[in-house]
């Protein structure tokens, strides 16, 4: 096994991070923890972007893309936490199972 980190190493780590994020998103009942799963997914995609930028054709595009991803994540989390807080106010629990008013 080649220990020297190359592109594939980063991609595998990012794949594992993505899988963990997905696991958190689909198995956690708590909305905040589901959000943490989402953040892990976004981080994993960002690792990909930066790694491709480093080992690929150069330029700076991947890193700029990554910056935009971070900005979007911040905006998304702000709105998401506002929603979780409101859910908590109405139901006194942040668990998604409690959100049952809608037939889904």
């Amino acid at each position, binding site marked *: 096994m080649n220990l020297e980190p190359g592109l594939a190493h980063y991609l595998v780590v990012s*794949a594992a991070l993505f899988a963990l994020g*997905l696991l958190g998103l689909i198995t956690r009942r708590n909305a905040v923890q589901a959000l943490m799963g989402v953040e*892990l997914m976004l981080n994993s995609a960002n690792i990909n972007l930066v790694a491709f930028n480093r080992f690929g054709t150069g330029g700076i595009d991947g890193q700029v893309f990554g910056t935009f991803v971070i900005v979007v994540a911040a905006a998304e989390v702000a709105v998401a936490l506002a929603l979780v807080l409101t859910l908590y106010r109405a139901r006194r629990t942040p668990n998604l199972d409690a959100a049952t008013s809608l037939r889904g």
Partner: protein
Amino acid sequence: MTASAFVFWVLATIVLGSAAVVVLSRSLINSAFALLATFAGVAGFYVLLGADFLAAVQFLVYVGGILILLVFGVMLTHRIQDLDLRAEARQLVPGLFVAAGVFALLTAVATRTPWAQGPGRELSATTADIGRAFLGKYLLPFEAASILLLVALIGAALIVRKREDA
């Protein structure tokens, strides 16, 4: 094993280990603080990949912003005296299978695919380049992102505001 390889494996262990804690821990607050290690580890990856500016952004926004927001979210949605906040999981076993499948699939793609080859970006300072990109090639997304932040600010304030004003 060179120094960078050593750092890589240490970081990979930190990132994946803490991410596993984030996802699997039964205590919500442990998850939240494990996320700190994940974010910091990812920032370490960025440094290792020569993206110093992005690493600083990651630290500033993820650790200084998003993580603190999430911790606030945890604290505000629980009775604060409970030290161990239980967060139950549902369908953990099927979830594990799905995640393992996704991981296998992505790993297969990651290792088998011949990615675009090129000279790569040598490890050099990126701040000036990123600044030029923001105000040059990426001017439109840069400005659009500011609109996005404004709207998210308005929206979040609107949602949590208790008072219904006419």
